[in-house]
C-alpha cells in the first residue's frame, strides 16, 4: 500500500520546496460567508494522476473548498498552488489556473443558446486560439469519448440530464486541463442516468486524469478513489484509502457518517 501523503499544515517555505509530483497544494485554507464559516483550515496535497474523493454531510464546506481551488470563491486566507502557479490577487494567475483546471457542476451549467458543439468549441477557440476546424475535430473526439457524438448539433435543452452532464465533462476536457474538479456531478440526475456519468468519470480516472471529486457516490469512491477525505464543519475529519476508510475508519465521526449513508 502506498504511504499516504502528509496532510499536516505546512509553512509556506516548505510548499516552495514541494516535490514536483504534487500538482495541487492546499494549505490552511479558510473561507467564510456572512454568518457561516464554510472552510476552516483545510490542507491537502494532491499528486499527479491521483483521484481524491471528498465526502461529508451537507454544509460541511466541501463544495466551497472545491470552488476555492479555481478561484470561483476567493479564500479568506491560506495558500493554493495549482501546478506551480499560486492562486493570488494576480489576475493572470487566476486566469491561467482556470485554464488548467476543468470544473463540472451539479447543475451542468451548459450555455443554453449554443449547440453542444459550440459549447465545447467556445473556450478552445477563444482562450487557446484554436481554429474552428481544429477545435471541432477535438470536440467531436471528446463527444465520441463520452458517447454522444450524435448530439453535436443539438441544443442543451433537448438533452437528458445525463447527456447534459456528459457534454459538460467534454466541455471541460476540451481545454486539456491538468486537473478536473467535480462538484456533486450526479446529485441533480435521475437515478437511471447516474451511471452513464460515473462511467465517463471512471474512464477518465483510468486514463490518468488528476481528479478532485465531491460526491456521495460510495460505489464510485470505493472503485476509483486513491484517497477519500471526510470533511465536517469545514475541516478534515479523516483521510484514508477506500479500504481503510470504509472498513476500518479511525474516527468515530467517520463511522457515524458511514452508518448514515450506507
Amino acid at each position, binding site marked *: 500500500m502506498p504511504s499516504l501523503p502528509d496532510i499536516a499544515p505546512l509553512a509556506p517555505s516548505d510548499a516552495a520546496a514541494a516535490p514536483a509530483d504534487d500538482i495541487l497544494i492546499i494549505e490552511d485554507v479558510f473561507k467564510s460567508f456572512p454568518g457561516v464559516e464554510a472552510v476552516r483550515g483545510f490542507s491537502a496535497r494532491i499528486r499527479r494522476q491521483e483521484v481524491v474523493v471528498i465526502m461529508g454531510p451537507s454544509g460541511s464546506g466541501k463544495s466551497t473548498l472545491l470552488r476555492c481551488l*479555481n*478561484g*470561483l470563491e476567493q479564500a479568506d486566507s491560506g495558500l493554493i498552488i495549482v501546478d506551480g502557479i499560486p492562486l493570488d490577487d494576480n489576475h493572470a494567475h487566476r*486566469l*491561467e489556473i*482556470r*485554464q488548467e*483546471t*476543468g*470544473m463540472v*457542476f451539479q*447543475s451542468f*451549467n*451548459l*450555455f*443554453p*443558446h449554443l449547440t453542444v458543439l459550440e459549447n465545447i468549441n*467556445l*473556450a478552445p477557440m*477563444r*482562450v487557446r486560439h484554436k481554429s474552428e476546424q481544429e477545435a471541432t475535430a477535438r470536440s467531436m473526439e471528446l463527444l465520441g469519448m463520452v458517447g454522444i457524438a450524435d448530439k453535436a448539433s443539438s*441544443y442543451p*435543452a*433537448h438533452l437528458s440530464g445525463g447527456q447534459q452532464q456528459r457534454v*459538460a465533462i467534454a*466541455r*471541460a476536457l476540451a*481545454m486539456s486541463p491538468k486537473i478536473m474538479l467535480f462538484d456533486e456531478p450526479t446529485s441533480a440526475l435521475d437515478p437511471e442516468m447516474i451511471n452513464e456519468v460515473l462511467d465517463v468519470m471512471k474512464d477518465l480516472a483510468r486514463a490518468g486524469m488528476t481528479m478532485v471529486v465531491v460526491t456521495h457516490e460510495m460505489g464510485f469512491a470505493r472503485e476509483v478513489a486513491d484517497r477519500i477525505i471526510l470533511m465536517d464543519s469545514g475541516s478534515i475529519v479523516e483521510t484514508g484509502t477506500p479500504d481503510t476508510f470504509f472498513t476500518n475508519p479511525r474516527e468515530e465521526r467517520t463511522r457515524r457518517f458511514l452508518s448514515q449513508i450506507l
Partner: protein
Amino acid sequence: MAPLAPTTVLRRFWRSPWRDIAQFVLLIVVVVWLVTLSSARLGYNWQWYRIPRYFWTVRNGRPVVGELLQGLGYTLQLSAVSLVCALTLGLVVALLRLSSSFMGRALSRVYLEITRNTPLVVQIYLAYFVLGPVLGIGRFSSAVLALTLFEGSYMSEIFRAGITSLHRGQWEAAYSLGLSTLDSYRFVILPQAVRRLLPPLTSEVVSLIKNTSLVSLVSLADLSMQARVIAADTFLTFEVWFTVALIYLLIMVPLAITARWLERRYAIAT
C-alpha cells in the same frame, strides 16, 4: 338540429374571435361619436381635403415633399441616431454599474440619479442652451445628446436587469473555462440577456421615438414642430393633430412586428 339555448349561443360568442371584433367595432363607434359630438359642440368645420398637400404636392409635373413628410424624415433620423447612441451608452453604463471598479459604479450611479430624476424637457433645454454652446455642437447634435442621456439611463437599467437575471452558474461555467470577463459577456452572458430584454427594450424604443416630439420645443423641425406650424397657419388643428398621431402610431407597428420576429427568431429552447 335542436335550436341552441340562448345561454349556449352567448357562451360560444364569448369564446370566439367575434367577441374581440365586436369590442373593437364598438370602441370605434364610441370614439367617432365622441369626436363628432365634441366638434359639433365647438362648431368645428372639418376640412380633411386640405391635409394631403402637406404630405406632398405635384409642382411642374414633379412630386414635392410636403412639411409633414419632411418632419417625419427628421423625426426618424433623430430617432435612429439617438437610438444607436442610447443603446451604446446604456450598455456601457450597465457594465460599469456591474463592474468591480468603485469609480465605475459611482459614476454610473450619479449619472442614473441625475438623468432619471429630472424631466426630459429640462434636459433638452439644458443640452440646447447650455451644453450646445459649451461643446460647440449644433441643434441636431444637442437634441441627440439630450435624448441619448435620458434614454440611455433607462436602457442601462434594462440591460442590467437582463444581465443579473441570468443564473450565476452561467458566469461560473464561463469563468471556470478560463474565459476573460469580456469574452464571458460577449459569448455567454449578453447573447442570453439580450433575448430576455427584447420586450422591455422594444417599449423603451417606442418611448424614445415618442419623446423625440419634445425637441420641437427648441425649434427643431421634427414632425411635431411641423404640425404646430401648419396648425397655426391654417387653423386645421383637429385634422393636423389627428394625422400626426396616426403617423406616430404607424411608425410603431413595423417596430412591434420586427421585435416579435426577432424574439421568435432567436428564442432559446427551454
